[in-house]
C-alpha cells in the first residue's frame, strides 16, 4: 500500500523524466523494475553485456546495433534516464496532443521514430547511409545465407530506388520520402498493457 509512490520517489528527477518522455508513473515503475532486473549487479547503470544477456536479443540479427543505440558515442554505460528516453521513441504517437508552436518535438513523433531507425543504418552518424553501411546491415540480417554478389545487387537496387540526388548514398530526407506510406506509428510502437 503506497509502495508505488515510494518507488517513484527513489528515482531522481522522475517528474522531468515523465514530462520529457510522456510515460505514466505506472510505466516508469515497470521500466524501473526491468532496469533493475537487467542490472544484475545493482550498479545503477547498464553496460552492453547486460543487454547481451537477453536471450531473444542475442539471436536478433541486428541485436548489436539496437544495443548500440542506447549508448551515446564514446560512453560505455547507460543510466535509467537515458534508458527510458531511448525507449520513449517507441511510445505510440499521441494523437490528441495539442500542437504547441514553441514546445520541442516529442520523442515519440513520427519523425523521431524514423531518425531512430535511420541511425541503425547510419552507424558513423554522418547523416547519410552509404553503400558500405547498407552492405553491412544486409550482411548482418542475412548472415551466411547469401553471396557477396547477391548482397551487392540488393544494395545497388535499393540505393537506385531511394537515392534522388544521385550522390550514391541515402540521406535522411530520402529515407523519409522512401518510407512515406509506411504506418510508422503501428510498426515502430510498443503498447503497454498497464
Amino acid at each position, binding site marked *: *500500500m*503506497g*509502495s*508505488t*509512490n515510494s518507488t517513484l520517489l527513489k528515482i531522481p528527477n522522475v517528474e522531468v523524466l515523465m514530462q520529457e518522455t510522456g510515460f505514466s508513473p*505506472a510505466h516508469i*515503475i*515497470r*521500466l524501473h523494475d*526491468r532496469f533493475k*532486473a537487467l542490472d544484475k549487479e545493482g550498479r545503477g547503470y547498464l553496460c552492453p553485456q547486460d*543487454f547481451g544477456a*537477453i*536471450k*531473444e*536479443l*542475442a*539471436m*536478433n*540479427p*541486428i*541485436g548489436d546495433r*539496437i544495443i548500440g543505440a542506447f549508448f551515446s558515442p564514446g560512453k560505455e554505460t547507460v543510466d535509467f534516464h537515458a534508458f527510458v528516453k531511448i*525507449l520513449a521513441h*517507441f511510445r505510440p504517437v499521441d494523437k490528441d496532443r495539442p500542437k504547441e508552436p514553441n514546445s520541442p518535438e516529442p520523442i515519440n513523433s513520427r519523425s523521431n521514430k524514423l531518425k*531512430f*531507425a535511420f541511425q*541503425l*543504418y547510419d552507424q558513423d552518424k554522418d547523416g547519410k547511409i552509404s553503400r558500405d553501411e547498407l552492405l553491412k*546491415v*544486409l550482411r548482418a*540480417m*542475412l*548472415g*551466411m*545465407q*547469401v553471396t557477396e554478389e*547477391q548482397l551487392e*545487387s*540488393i544494395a545497388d*537496387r*535499393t540505393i537506385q*530506388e*531511394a537515392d534522388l540526388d544521385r550522390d550514391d548514398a*541515402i540521406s535522411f530526407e530520402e*529515407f523519409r520520402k*522512401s*518510407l*512515406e*506510406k*509506411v*504506418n510508422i506509428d503501428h*510498426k*515502430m510502437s*510498443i*503498447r*503497454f*498493457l*498497464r
Partner: protein
Amino acid sequence: MEGAWDIAFVLFQVWMSIVAGLIVLPAMFGVSLGFTDIYIKVLIKTLEWATLRIQRGQKEQPALPSQSANGIIEKHDGSMEEEIGELRRSHPKNLAGGDFTLCDAFYFCKKGIENIVEDQVTQRFTSEELASWNLLTRTNNNFRYISVRLTIMWGLGVFIRYCILLPLRITLASIGLSWLVIGTTLVGLLPNSNAKNWLSDLVHITCYRICARGLSARIRYHNKENRPKKGGICVANHTSPIDIVILANDGCYAMVGQVHGGLMGVIQRSMVRSCPHVWFERSEMKDRHAVAKRLKDHIADKTKLPILIFPEGTCINNTSVMMFKKGSFEIGGTIYPVAIKYDPQFGDAFWNSAKYNMVSYILRMMTSWAIVCNVWYLPPMTRQDGEDAVHFANRVKSAIAQQGGLIDLSWDGGLKREKVKESFKEEQQKMYSSMIQDLTEKNGLQKTYTV
C-alpha cells in the same frame, strides 16, 4: 516464577493436544475435518470484497483490459513473413513484393526493443502478477492506498498470518519431518517383506499429509485412474520443492536427487532405509550413463515405487512449461505425465532460487494465505517406434502444458544461466533470407534474358 513456568507448560500441553487431535491424527488417517475448506471459503469471500473495493477506488482510471496477467506489453504474434510483408506492402515501388526494402529493419528493431522491455525467458523466472491484489504486501505492485477499511483488513491479515498461522505451520512441519525420520528409521529395522512396504508407504504418506496441512494446502486430484504405477516414471512440471509434497500426498514415489548435507541429508538417509530411493553423489551426476543405468535398474524391478522426475531441471513460475531434458525419456518404461497448476490468488508457490534461499522461501510459503492447486494425472505414454527422445519429450510436454493451461515454450530453463547458441541467430537469418532470395534469383534470371 515457578507459577509462570507451570502455566506456560500447561498452555504448551493444551496447544500440542489441540494440534495433535485436530490436525495430526486426522491427517494420518486421511480424514479431513473440513477446517481448510471453511478457511478457504472465508478467504475467497474476503478477497472478493477487497477486489471490489479496489475496483471502486480505481474507477477514475481508464478501464484496462483484464488480460493474462503476465505480459506488460502488447505483443503481436505474427510470423516474420506476415510482419515484414505488411511493412513492404505500403512501399510504392514494391510491386512484386519480395524485394529488400529499407523498412525491413523496422521488424527486427521493434522485436529487439520489445525484448529489451520484456523477454519470454526472464519473464518465466519471476512470479506471476495478479490481476487483483490478494492482501499480501509482496504482491502489491500496482495497487495504491484505497481506503481505511482495506488497510485494516490487510493489517488483520498480517496479524493472522504471522502470529497465528505461522507458529501453527512451523509446529506441523516439524512434527511431520520428525515423524518421517523416526518412522522410516524404525521401519528400516524390519526385515524385507510386504508388511514392511505397507508400513513404509503409510509412514511416508502420513508425513506428507502432515506437511501439507502445515502449508494449508488444498489439493484437488483429477483423473485418479491414471495414477503412476510401480515400475513407471512419473513426470511433472516443476514450480517449487513443494511439488513433491503435493504429489506424494496421493501416492508413494521413489525420489530422485542429489545427496545433500545437513538436515536434508538426514532425511534422505532415513528415507532410504525404509524403501529404495535414488540418491546420487555429486560426482555421479556428471556421468550420464551411470545415472541412466541406475534409473533403468530401478524401473526394471517391478516391486519398486515409480520414480518421480522433473525434466525441466529448474523451477519455472507456473505460467509455462519449458524444455524437457531428454535424459529421462531415453530410459524406456512407461511415462506417467502429471500437470500441476497452482492458484496464485492464495499464495505464490514459485521458488525464485536466485532471489530467495530455501529458508526464506519456506517462510514465505508459511506466511501466505494457503496453497491451492490442481493436479491432473494424464494417461500413460510410451515412446513410439522410430521416435527419438527429444520428440517424445516434446510430446509429453505439450500434453502437460495443454492440461494445465500453461504456455508451451521450447526455451531451455537452463538458459537463465547460459548463453544463447549462435544457431538461433542463424535460424533468424535463414528465415529472413528466404523472403528475399526468391526475387534475387528471379532477377538474376531476368538479367540473362534481357541480355
